[in-house]
């Protein structure tokens, strides 16, 4: 969607979109960096607060924007932390991709019954599965970490619920402000 050549020709339509994606991605990158600095009790267990932004964008805008924000966050953060193409980056990217794939389907759940909490929990599980697949097939190619999987998944569930609650809260306190300029 944000396309520089297109951008130079049609400014009115694409520019606000691009700006919005850039702003939201910057926010997500900020959260990602804060989290990268915070100590983690266990490698692989992180709250994933940047996913709040992905979910927020998914609700306020659409899936494509959310995917842009999420992937820009993964790439830009890895450049800033200087782990681009390292195992950490691969973990992050695999998690983000699987999580986006899950969200792509989960967004069609009836919103009357399923709020951002559901999406957040599903995304968190998918993120963890993506990471574990990378670990299993690339980093540690034996079943040695099998007994850690329950711990990882519990963390995913807990942080998924917390992030979902925060996303709900965020959606409530900023009532569709962006919807207007979206048209």
């Amino acid at each position, binding site marked *: 969607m944000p396309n520089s050549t297109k951008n130079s020709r049609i400014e009115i339509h694409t520019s606000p979109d691009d700006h919005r994606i850039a702003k939201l991605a910057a926010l997500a990158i900020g959260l990602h960096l804060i989290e990268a600095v915070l100590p983690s009790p266990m490698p692989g267990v992180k709250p994933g607060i940047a996913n709040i932004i992905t979910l927020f964008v998914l*609700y306020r805008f659409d899936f494509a924007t959310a995917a842009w924000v999420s992937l820009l966050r993964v790439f830009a953060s890895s450049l800033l932390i200087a782990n681009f193409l390292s195992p950490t980056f691969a973990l992050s990217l695999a998690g983000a991709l699987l999580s986006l794939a899950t969200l792509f389907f989960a967004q069609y*759940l*009836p*919103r*009357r*019954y*399923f*709020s*951002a*909490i*559901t999406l957040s*929990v*599903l995304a968190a*599980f998918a993120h963890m599965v993506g990471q574990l697949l990378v670990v299993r097939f690339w980093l540690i190619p034996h079943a040695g970490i*099998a*007994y850690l*999987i*329950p711990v990882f*998944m*519990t963390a995913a*569930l807990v942080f*998924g*619920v917390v992030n*979902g*609650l925060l996303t*709900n*809260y965020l*959606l*409530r306190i900023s*009532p*569709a402000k962006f919807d207007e300029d979206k048209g």
Partner: protein
Amino acid sequence: MKGALRCGKPLLGDFLVIVVGLIFVAFLFKTLWHNEQAAKLQIRLGDKIYATYSLDQNRNIDIQGPIGITRVVIADGKARFESSPCPNQYCVHQGWLSHKGQAAICLPNQVSLELLGGEKPFDSLNY
């Protein structure tokens, strides 16, 4: 459509997802943190496998180590060090081992016990 979103509280489906998630996690703990009963006892002496015994028997095994005889007992699907010539008796105090993956070591006499499941693939066995 967005009316429901405005209230930040979890909705019915959210609770459903959380409950399913909890069951999923509980299932993972149950399958991956197996408290399976062990099927075999593997005894090592030094860096070699001394012997592997089935736990379906009651048996005393005396092992001659560098500082004396260590007695290992198998009974009711469990195994333990019954006596050992070592000074601190840590191995004896470990007590009964019954779950797959449990292990006890007597360093002074270089004897170690490890409980195996039924399906562990062996490189070699020597009885």
